């Protein structure tokens, strides 16, 4: 079962002025099929944690296992979605989506069909042959999501995927993502700096603290799925949001003094 386990993950960034401890002893288990969001102040090591899980960055100590297997380098089993879309600008939408399948050696016809399916899923059917530069930000991110889904990863790692989008597009993308997720229940680790987004999407919100980067609190979100607009306005939601907000913005004062 594809769960993600972080075991005492530590990551230093060496520099001449001495090492910088970006992550210190992070242990976290994301259960199979769970949707976990990670929030925390800027620079607390969220991206570092995600990149270690993706295999794009080595842990200095500790390990990450996905589906019981230790992570050693990137693999298509762990889909990653970046904030900056990272679409290949010289490829059309469908060529972008087919890239991972091509790497995997999937035949042309099968590739086409699979790409068509996920492109339809994210609602870009009319833009299959468009170049990324002609797409809006939301469309680019939907294309990136389609590209990640095309190779059918066991888990999804998303690093502030909606960070560059306007508020309205953002809400739409959240609902679309939840809808897809509730159909296939893929394990998701989702980084955001938006407290609202963190609570709305997650079954648990992981709040990190900085210097050194570590887990500060974990807030369980006991709202049922599917999440609805009414839930966003409910008292329970407001309460959860306040809890997360306090955990993010009122971290222990000694550390706050450190980080400023």
């Amino acid at each position: 079962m594809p769960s993600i386990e972080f075991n005492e993950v530590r990551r230093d960034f060496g520099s001449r002025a001495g090492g910088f401890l970006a992550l210190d002893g992070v242990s976290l288990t994301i259960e199979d099929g769970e949707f976990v969001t990670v929030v925390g102040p800027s620079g607390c090591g969220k991206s570092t944690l995600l990149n270690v899980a993706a295999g794009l960055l080595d842990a200095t100590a500790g390990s990450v296992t996905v589906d019981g297997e230790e992570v050693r380098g990137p693999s298509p089993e762990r889909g990653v979605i970046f904030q900056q879309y990272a679409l290949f600008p010289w490829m059309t939408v469908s060529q972008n989506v087919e890239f991972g399948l091509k790497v995997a050696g999937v035949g042309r016809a099968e590739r086409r069909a699979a790409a068509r399916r996920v492109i339809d899923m994210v609602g870009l059917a009319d833009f299959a042959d468009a170049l990324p530069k002609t797409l809006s930000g939301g469309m680019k991110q939907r294309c990136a999501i389609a590209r990640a889904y095309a190779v059918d990863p066991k888990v999804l790692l998303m690093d502030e995927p909606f960070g560059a989008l306007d508020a309205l597009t953002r809400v739409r993308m959240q609902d679309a993502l939840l809808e897809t997720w509730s159909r296939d229940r893929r394990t998701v680790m989702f980084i955001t700096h938006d407290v609202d987004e963190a609570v709305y999407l997650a079954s648990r919100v992981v709040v990190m603290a900085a210097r050194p980067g570590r887990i500060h609190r974990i807030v369980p979100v006991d709202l049922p799925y599917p999440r609805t607009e009414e839930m966003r306005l409910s008292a329970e939601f407001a309460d959860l949001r306040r809890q997360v907000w306090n955990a993010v913005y009122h971290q222990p004062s000694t550390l706050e003094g450190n980080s400023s």
Partner: protein
Amino acid sequence: MRRQAVSAAPARGPGQVKEDPERARKAPGSASREDAEGSAARRAARTQRLRNALLSLCSAALGLVVWIVLAHSGIQGFPGPASVLSRGWQLLRDGVLLDDLGASLRRVLTGYVIGTALAVPVGFAMGWYPVVRRLIEPWLQFFRMVPPLAVIPLAIVLMGIGETPKIFVIFLAAFLSCVVSTFQGVVSVDPTLVSAARVLGAGDARVFLGVVVPASSPFILVGMRIGLGAAWATVVAAELIAAQSGLGFRMQQAQLYYDLPTMFVQLIAIGTVGLAMDRLLLLAEHRLTGWQERR
């Protein structure tokens, strides 16, 4: 990569128009309005083009006037457009102009093709393997500071007076300009694109051929353009110094006989051919890298 870029090109124009699907869907009656907007935009573009063409024409006319004024201002032997034109016609009819052009172009293209063919892989190797970069870069920086022409005397002593030394310096000029920008292109490839390819399972070869090469192609094409400019400038200068044929050689001969019209013809030929080659590469650049977001 080339095939993709070319086949993608047609999507460029229409993409702009259909960018907003919501608007098209929400207002079914808006089709005619959009048409009207489109034709207005086209009309504006046409006016703009017409204006630019007119301005170019004005610029040419102004140049001609300046030339005629200069010719009548009594500078010793300064030829007017008419005498230059008739000399140009004469040289063309005799076949001298075309022979010279052929000789110069042959040298330039030989040196240029060898230079860029070597520069592209070397630039890639430098960008991809830090060791190669450390080994090559000092020499590159050094030779970039030496004008290729300054190598000519040495090249003639070492390689004789035939075509080889001239082709060699052209090769050097083209190689040096192109290798630097290829290398720059490789090191400035967006690392998240490389990450994106890796998390989709791409290995080193795929990352290189599928991401690094296309992502750096705009830089390479710019380098090739600069290289061609450098090569053309170098061939003319090299022919001024040591050649028995070519546009530069003819100009040098004309100088011996105070034949100013011929010098003008050569000058105009050199400029025109250089410009034509540059435009050709610019066109190729636009076709191949139309996918770029230009700001």
